[in-house]
Every structure is written in structure tokens, then in C-alpha cells.
């Protein structure tokens, strides 16, 4: 049995770091904050690795099947009988895998930041935010209750807000962090309502029970829930689709991806941690966590998941080919790779051989974390050296940044899917799963892998080759970062090169039974050949300074321009929010309140005043007038008595 204390410590250690550094950091630990944070995370990483070892090799497997354990379940907030938010820990293959990924990548970022953020005025604040983020992400991964997941989900959102807006006096950073939070909040609204729908149908918030109740088609729960339909779809379909909207927002899927490229305003190590390796996979994890519901009860929604993933993958890849900001290229590449994971889930089925998409998706999540973190940290080293994000300012850097150069190349080969690097294995499995289930998605994926190789090597050649004499002044450029920055690069480089050899299907599959993945050489020819073509094209265009790329862009004309402007999706959003929501809803609402509702209140006041002004004149104090009133009264009363009552 897993040990609840050990596992609970994994998220609690970063939390301790957050509280300690957040409350006392600026006063007590101005210098040592980085070391404290890193030490705590090192301990958490060791515990996570230990947990993974114990789970996968000691107690996890019973009769050849990996078991699911649910621990703790402390009641946090009870709503009504049987429905409460319980803080629990779920231990199954994907949560254990994620524990390792999150702690390891976070540790790398912690170490890297020791060098990268040195001399920063709010050094301890930075480390406390990192702790908060790691805590939230680990809590999300371990959540056994769907509302617990939502709680940490929001926690992840706010930590990313804080970290993107870390340079709070830069207007662009402020705008970016607001955008990230609001766009994901909009998606979270879907998640929230989805939870309400699903939990009401299932009568529980516990994920395990919820899945169990919603996936047995004969049960009354499912029957009543499917009988209730709204706009032609059953309650469960709505619930699952709404939950997916939440996942799509956090995972930057089209059309909710607009926050991700802007999120690069944060410090670069943060981009590596949040916007590449961990937070953005939360949506994938959510779908994977509820996968039985999606695949058994609402296959229609799962198909949408697949298409959204595939569309996002290719759209992002096209945009990435045109961007010149190194971090933006990587951001779009993240979106594209997350799209791979999403559609791998979308084409998967429940159980056995047909569930290979699920395993492939998780595998890709794992390898992607390695090479994407590496790419971002490498980009950080480049930016640190050049003091610019624009690839136009770079070139010929291979002589100055040898370690960065080699590790960056490994990462590029990995993401391009060239054997034997990590990305090759996971992407191959994804393509295979798509091939078996959905040919259209397979073709999209194939084209996207070619594009991936092209834009990654466009980046690589532009940074490290191209101009032989760098344009930046050598005097201002420092050395390649110190030991703290190089160590993570090397470690991640090893990971990106070798992680593919892990027999992933042995450990992670939807039903816990080992899945033997077969790499088919014939099948691999097409994607690898396409990848190599992409690399060759990039080599031809970008290795040396020439005007071929400009001519190519010119020949593509409008399409290139549209891709360069990210297909104007931001502008559409801007139109909707500024023109419609602000001017047509909010402004009239504010006006209506001040003028109509409050106007009525003031009208009541003034009309009472006016009435009293009128009545006031009656009390004039003149005896003659009172005599007339008196006389009139007597006459009227007398007349009434005489003519009416008699």
C-alpha cells in the first residue's frame, strides 16, 4: 500500500516554501531564498521518484494489473448528504507519472533560476511563486475529487497569473497576465458548470465513484441523465463537453489558445515550467483522468476532443513557421504538441489494443515535458546572452554557447521526431493510433510533423548558424550561463535523448494492463522522411544568410501574412470584448443604473417634495383664508347630508 504521509509531503513541501518565502522572504531570506526553494523541491523530487519506484515496481501491480489507490479523503466542505469536497490523494499510473514529471521539471527550473534570476530584486518572491505553482500543480495531479481538482486548477491559474505578471511594471506583462487569467477563467466557467452537471447526475463528486456510476450504461443514473436533454444533447454530453472546454482553455487549444503566446512575458524559466511542460498539460490530464466517461458514455464529445486537438496542432504549426520571436515560436510549438496529445486521446478507445492512443498521449506528455523544458531553458540561455528575443538579432551563436547549442540541437531532433530521440517514439505511437482510428486526423498529424521539423530547425539555424558575425556587440555579451544554468540543460538533454527508450506501455495504460508498443519500421518511414525533408528545407533556407526565405514568404502572399498575424484571431476577440461586451452590454448597464433605476429613486424624492410644496401653501396663517376653508367645508358637508343621505 502507498504511504499517505510520504505522498502528501510531495505537494506540501513546495507549499511550505511558498509560505516561508512569501511571508518572510524579503526580510530574512533575501539571498538564500533560491537555495531554500530548491532544497525543498529536491526533497519533493526524491519523494516523488521513490513513490514512482514503489508504485511501479513494488506494490502497484496486482495480478498483472496496475491498481488505483485512493488515500486520505478528508472532508473539506460538505454540500449535502453524500456530496462533499474531500481532499484526497489518487495514486494510479498517470498520477504517479505526473508527480515525477512535475517535480523533476520544476526542480530543473528552480536550479536554472538560481543563475538566471540572480540579482533580481524580488528574488524571494519569485521563488515563493514557483513554490505556489508547484504545489497547485501537484495538488491537481493528486486530486481524487473533481472539485478538489477544480480548486487546484484555479490555483494553477493564479500562480501562472502571478508569474506571467512578475515584471509587474511592464505594461505588456500586465496585459499578458490579465489575458491569461481571463481567457482561462472563461474556460473554467465551462468546467464549473460541467462539474455541476456531471456531479448532479452521478450524485457524487468523488472521481472514482463518478466514473463508475457514469460508465455503466445499464445504471439508472445514466438512464435518467441521458433521458434529460437540452438542445438535442443529453445532460451527460453537455457535462462532458463543458468539462472539456475547461481543459481546452488551460491547454491552450483553438480557439482558446490566444493567451499562451502572450504568456511569454514572464521570466523565461517560468515559460519553461508553466507554459511548456506542466500547466498546459493540465487539460490533457483532465481528459485523461475522466477518460472512461468520455470514451464509454460520451464518445461524441471524445470525437470533438480529437478534432480540436488536430486543428490546434496544425494551426499552431503553421503560425510557428512565421514568427520571429524565439519564445513565441516555442509557444506555438507547445500548442501544436499539446494538440497531438489531445487528438491522441480523441482517437483512443477504452481498453486493450484500441486504447493505445491513451498510452501514446501520456507518453508524449512525458517526453514533451523533457524536450520542451530544454528548449525553453536553452532559449533562456540565448536570451540571457543576446538580450533580445528576436531571432533577427541572433546568429552564429554556436561558437559562443557550445553547451546550449548541443542540448538545443538534441531537443530539436527530439521534437522533430528523428530516431532515436525521445520524441520519435511517442509521436510514432500517436500517429499509429491515429492511423488505426481516424485517417483524416492521421494526415493532419503527418503534415504537422513535417512542419514541426521545419519550424524547429528554422529556429535552430537562425540562432546558431546563419550570420557568421553576430550583430550584437560582443562587449555587452557575457559568458554562457554558469553551472546552475548549464546543469539543467545537460540533465534535460539526457532525458530528451533517452526518454524514448522507456517501455511506457508497460506502465501506463487506460485499464492498467501492460500494453506492448510495437514500432513498425515501415510505418515510421513516412513521418521520419517528412521530418528530414522539413529539416533540409530549413537548412536550405536558413543555414546561411540569403534572401530565399523572404522570396518564399513573398510568393505565399496573403496566406503568409495571415499566418504571421496569427490568422487575426486576437483581433476577433478584441472586437467581441471591446465592441460588443464593453460598449453594448457593460456601458448601457452602467448608464441604465445611474439614470433609469436611480432616476426613479430621485424622481420619487422630488415628486414628494413637489407635492409637499404644493400642500404647504394651504397653511398660510391668514385667518380669512382659514375661514373660507371652514365655510366651504361646512357647505360641502351640508350639501352631502341633504342630497345624499337625506
Amino acid at each position, binding site marked *: 500500500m502507498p504511504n499517505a504521509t510520504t505522498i502528501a509531503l510531495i505537494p506540501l513541501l513546495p507549499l511550505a516554501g511558498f509560505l516561508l518565502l512569501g511571508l518572510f522572504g524579503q526580510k530574512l531570506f533575501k539571498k538564500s531564498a533560491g537555495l531554500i526553494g530548491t532544497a525543498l523541491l529536491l526533497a519533493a523530487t526524491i519523494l516523488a521518484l521513490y513513490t514512482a519506484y514503489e508504485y511501479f515496481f513494488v506494490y502497484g501491480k496486482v495480478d498483472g494489473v496496475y491498481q488505483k489507490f485512493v488515500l486520505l479523503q478528508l472532508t473539506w*466542505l460538505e454540500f449535502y448528504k453524500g*456530496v462533499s469536497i474531500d481532499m484526497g490523494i489518487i495514486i494510479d499510473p498517470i498520477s504517479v507519472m505526473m508527480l515525477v514529471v512535475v517535480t523533476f521539471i520544476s526542480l530543473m527550473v528552480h536550479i536554472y533560476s538560481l543563475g538566471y534570476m540572480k540579482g533580481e530584486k524580488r528574488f524571494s518572491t519569485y521563488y515563493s511563486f514557483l513554490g505556489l505553482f508547484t504545489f497547485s500543480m501537484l495538488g491537481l495531479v493528486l486530486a481524487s475529487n473533481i472539485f478538489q481538482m*477544480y480548486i487546484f486548477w484555479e490555483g494553477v491559474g493564479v500562480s501562472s497569473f502571478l508569474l506571467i505578471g512578475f515584471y509587474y511594471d511592464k505594461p505588456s506583462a500586465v496585459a499578458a497576465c490579465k489575458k491569461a487569467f*481571463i481567457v482561462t477563467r472563461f474556460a473554467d466557467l465551462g468546467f464549473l458548470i460541467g462539474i455541476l452537471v456531471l456531479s*448532479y447526475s452521478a450524485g457524487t463528486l468523488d472521481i472514482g465513484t463518478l466514473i463508475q456510476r457514469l460508465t455503466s450504461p445499464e445504471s439508472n443514473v445514466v438512464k435518467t441523465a441521458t433521458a434529460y436533454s437540452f438542445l438535442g444533447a443529453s445532460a451527460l454530453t453537455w457535462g462532458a463537453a463543458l468539462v472539456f472546454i475547461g481543459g481546452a482553455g488551460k491547454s491552450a487549444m483553438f480557439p482558446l489558445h490566444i493567451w499562451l503566446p502572450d504568456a511569454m512575458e514572464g521570466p523565461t524559466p517560468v515559460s519553461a515550467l508553466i507554459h511548456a511542460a506542466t500547466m498546459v498539460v493540465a487539460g490533457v490530464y483532465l481528459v485523461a483522468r475522466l477518460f472512461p466517461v468520455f470514451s464509454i458514455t460520451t464518445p461524441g464529445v471524445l470525437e470533438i476532443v480529437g478534432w480540436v486537438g488536430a486543428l490546434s496542432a496544425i494551426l499552431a504549426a503553421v503560425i510557428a513557421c512565421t514568427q520571429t520571436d524565439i519564445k513565441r515560436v516555442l509557444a506555438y510549438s507547445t500548442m501544436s504538441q499539446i494538440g497531438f496529445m489531445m487528438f491522441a486521446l480523441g482517437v483512443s478507445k477504452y481498453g486493450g489494443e484500441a486504447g493505445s492512443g491513451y498510452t501514446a498521449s501520456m507518453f508524449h506528455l512525458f517526453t514533451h515535458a523533457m524536450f520542451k523544458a530544454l528548449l525553453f531553458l536553452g532559449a533562456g540561455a540565448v536570451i540571457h546572452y543576446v538580450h533580445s528575443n528576436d531571432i533577427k538579432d541572433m546568429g552564429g551563436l554556436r561558437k559562443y554557447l557550445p553547451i546550449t547549442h548541443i542540448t538545443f540541437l538534441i531537443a530539436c531532433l527530439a521534437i522533430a521526431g528523428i530516431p532515436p530521440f525521445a520524441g520519435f517514439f511517442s509521436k510514432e505511437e500517436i500517429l499509429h493510433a491515429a492511423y488505426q482510428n481516424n485517417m483524416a486526423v492521421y494526415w493532419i498529424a503527418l503534415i504537422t510533423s513535417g512542419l514541426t521539423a521545419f519550424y524547429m530547425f528554422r529556429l535552430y539555424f537562425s540562432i546558431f548558424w546563419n550570420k557568421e558575425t553576430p550583430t550584437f556587440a560582443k562587449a555587452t555579451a557575457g559568458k554562457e550561463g554558469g553551472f546552475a544554468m548549464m546543469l539543467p540543460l545537460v540533465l534535460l538533454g539526457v532525458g530528451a535523448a533517452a526518454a524514448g527508450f522507456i517501455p511506457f506501455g508497460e506502465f501506463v495504460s487506460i485499464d492498467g494492463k501492460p500494453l506492448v508498443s510495437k514500432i513498425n519500421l515501415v510505418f515510421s518511414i513516412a513521418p521520419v522522411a517528412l521530418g528530414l525533408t522539413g529539416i533540409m528545407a530549413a537548412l536550405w533556407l536558413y543555414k546561411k544568410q540569403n534572401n530565399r526565405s523572404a522570396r518564399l514568404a513573398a510568393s505565399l502572399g496573403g496566406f503568409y501574412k495571415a499566418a504571421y498575424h496569427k490568422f487575426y484571431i486576437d483581433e476577433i476577440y478584441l472586437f467581441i470584448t471591446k465592441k460588443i461586451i464593453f460598449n453594448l452590454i457593460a456601458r448601457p*448597464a*452602467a448608464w441604465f*443604473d445611474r439614470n433609469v433605476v*436611480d432616476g426613479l429613486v430621485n424622481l420619487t*424624492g422630488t415628486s414628494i417634495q413637489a407635492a409637499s410644496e404644493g400642500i404647504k401653501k394651504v397653511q398660510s396663517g391668514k385667518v380669512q383664508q382659514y375661514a373660507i376653508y371652514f365655510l366651504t367645508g361646512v357647505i360641502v358637508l351640508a350639501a352631502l347630508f341633504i342630497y345624499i343621505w337625506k
Partner: protein
Amino acid sequence: MNLLLLIGLPVLTALAVLLSRNKQQVKWISLLGSLAQLGLAIALLFAFRQERAANNTAQMLFEQHYKLFAALNINFHIGVDGISVAMVLLTSFVVMAGVLVSWNIEKMTKEFYFLLILLALGAYGFFISLDLFILFFFLEISVIPKYLLIGIWGSGRKEYSANKLALMLMGGSALILVGILGLYFTAGHSFDLLSLSKTNIPGNIQHIIFPFLFIGFGVFTALFPFHTWVPDGHSSAPTAGSMFLAGISMKLGGYGCLRVATYLLPEGAKEYANIIIILSAIAILYGAFATMMQKDLKYINAYSSVSHVGFSLLGIGMLTQTAITGALLQMVSHGLMTALFFAVIGMIYDRTHTRMVAEMGGLMKVMPFISTVFFIVGLCSLGLPGLSGFVAEITVFMGSWQVDDTFHRIATIIAAMSIVVTAVYILRAIGQTVMGPVKNENFLQLKDATWNEKWAAIILVAGIVAIGVAPGWLNNLLRPAAQVIMDRISGK
């Protein structure tokens, strides 16, 4: 525990303030008095829990009963259940913070503190009253100080605002009075809340009386469309005045809507529940949209209060135990949060002499403590987990979703949509004031919070976090009491 202490202590403090000789004495007496009151409220919480743990299942605990006027059956009857304990606790937190924030009031210090304590006295008395006559008496005690606080120590169009607020609240009181008298004469000449709750009042009479009571109390708690005193009142009130108005006074109304109107007249509540739901759903979303356009920090919080209080009324209108618990959680949460928000706005205004969002920027650099608190309260307002707002809103949503017909579903979804709009206006406010470059050179000389301001903020933040991180204790306090109200509604 003797509940008379809860009323006696403010009376003594008020007298001591009147007799004190200089400003220092006034301030320290008020501080000690409110500190003692805070201690008393916490002691009450523990005493209450102890009694419940010892299986004392009486509806009201620590009851006391004195005859005031036998001929008309008017009694001084007090007692507390979980709801009252929570409200007393809320009041003591806000009063404590309000006293601390007002430390530098120079103009007529003695009178200012006297009125603050008088207002608090009214609130304490109101929350523990079990007799409608004294309940109304305490409600009125709390109205007059507001008028003076705004009229004398206010800013901007203070006379207009003070008049508006006092007249609208008086109008609400008039409706309440009619409602109470209606109850008295139709239910056997009694003002006693507990005995009224056991009387069967004919349905058609309930239908007539209910609107009087609900709208009357609704005016206090900014029921749409009777909310327009809120923006004007808050924007003109001094800091502590705003804190008390939003943190305590609006809760008097919410408490009355539930305890008096809904609890005593369940048939009336059922009859008008849909209207309540429609009005509160409108208030939630429309208030949030209206907030988006505000430029003055106080107006932002005032409109946002209209939106947030809507959750309380929505929860009441849903008539399920969970939703009512959520409504109560929201009252406590919003009370703490909004008091803190006004406190922070006051601190910023004292330094920058502006409340206009557009004129600020980069305050984080100049006053990190105040800015961090601003951050926290903003995140609480937009319902971030770990802070109290989330707990309350989520409970309302869960409770609302239990009523499964399309009307209630749509109302819940409309209310839920506000979480996005709230995020927009909160982040806009935070982004323009706390973050960004420092716009005004003069701001660079400003100082961060003083000791009294720090403590005021810490007390309220502690309350918000205590509910947000471990909501169980408050939930367990409120839920059984909500169940009692629910039992009467469902006719058990």
C-alpha cells in the same frame, strides 16, 4: 455564556468614550472595547460549539427572557443559533478593523467613535434578538449613525448621499414595521420569533405580508432595484463608514430576509421565490457589468457588492438547504471581504488623494503591503479557491443546481457567468492601480501601511483565509441552522 455581555460591552464602551477627556483616550478605549468584543465573540463561538458537542440540540442556545411590556406581549428575548454566532463574529471582526482604520480621524474624534460603537451595538443586538420588537429597535439604532457618519465625516456629495441612504433605509424600515405588525395581529399578538415560527399563518395572509418584510430588509441588503443608495452612500462615506455599511449593515438585511421573512412566512417565500431568483440573477450579472465601467475604486466595490450580495439572495430564493447555507456563507464572506476592500481603498486614498483608477499605477513598488492586501482581496472577490469567496459561491451553485428544472438551471448559469465578468473588472482594477509603471512621480514618496492599518488588514485577511482554507467549521455552524429554516419551509 451570558449574551447580555454582547450588548452590555458596547454600551459601556460608548459611555466610556463619552466620558473620556482627549482623543488618545477615545481611541484606546474604543480599541480595547472592540478587542474585548472580539474576544467575547470568539468565546461565544467556542461556548456554542461546546454546547452542541454536548448534544444540546435546542434551536436557540443561551436564551434569556425578560418581560418588557406585558400588556402588548413585548419581551426582551435573546438567544443564538449558528447563524447568529457567525454574524456576531463577522461584526466583531469588522468593528475591530474599522476602529483601527479610523485611527487618524482628526475631526470630532469622540463623536465619530461614539457613533461607530453605537452602530456596532445595533448590529450585535439585532443578530441576537428573538423578539421582533427589539429586533426592529436595534435595526433602527444602526440607521441613524450611518446618516451622521456620512453627513459629517463624508466627502463629495455627502449631504445628498446621506439623505438618500437614510431615506431609503427608513423606507425599508417602514415596510418592515408594517410587516411585523401584520404578523403580530394575524398570529396571536406575539412578537416572539420562536413562537411565531410554530404558528400556522394562513397562506393568503403570508402572501400579503411577505413582500413587505422581504423588500424592507431587501433595501438594506441592496436588493435590485432598491440598491441605488449603495454606490452613492459608499462613495461619500468615510472609510470606516463604508466598511460598516457594506460589512455589517447589508448583512442585517440579508439576515432579516432569511430569519424573519423566509423563516416565518414560508408560504410567502415559495410564492415569490421565482421573483427573488430573477431579481438576484439580474443583480449578479448586471451589477458585475456595471462594475466594469466604473472609474472610481469605491464605485467599483459598491457595484461589485450589489453583484456579490445577489448570491446571498439567490441562495435564499433557491430554497434548498445547501443554497441557504451558501447564502449565509456568502454573507459572512462578503462582509469580511468588502470591509477589507474599503479599508484598502481608504488607505490608498489617504496617500494618493485620489480614488480614480486611471490616475494610479505601480503602487506595488511604493506600498507593497497595501498592494498585496489589495491583491488578496481582489482574488477573494473573484472567487479564488483558498479564500472565502470561493467557498460561498460554490455552495450556492451546488445548492441551486439541486433544483432541477430549466428555470433554476438558467438562473444558476447566469449567476455563474459572473465569475468571468468579476475576473475582468477585478483584474482591470488591480492591473491599473497596483501593477504597471508608476504614473505619478509624487507617489514615489508615499509610505506603506502604518501599524494600525496593518493590523486592520491582518485581522480581516485572517478571517478570509480561515474560511477559505478550512471552511468546515463555518459550514458546520451554519448548516444545522439552515436545516431548521428548511424544515419549516418544507413543512416538517
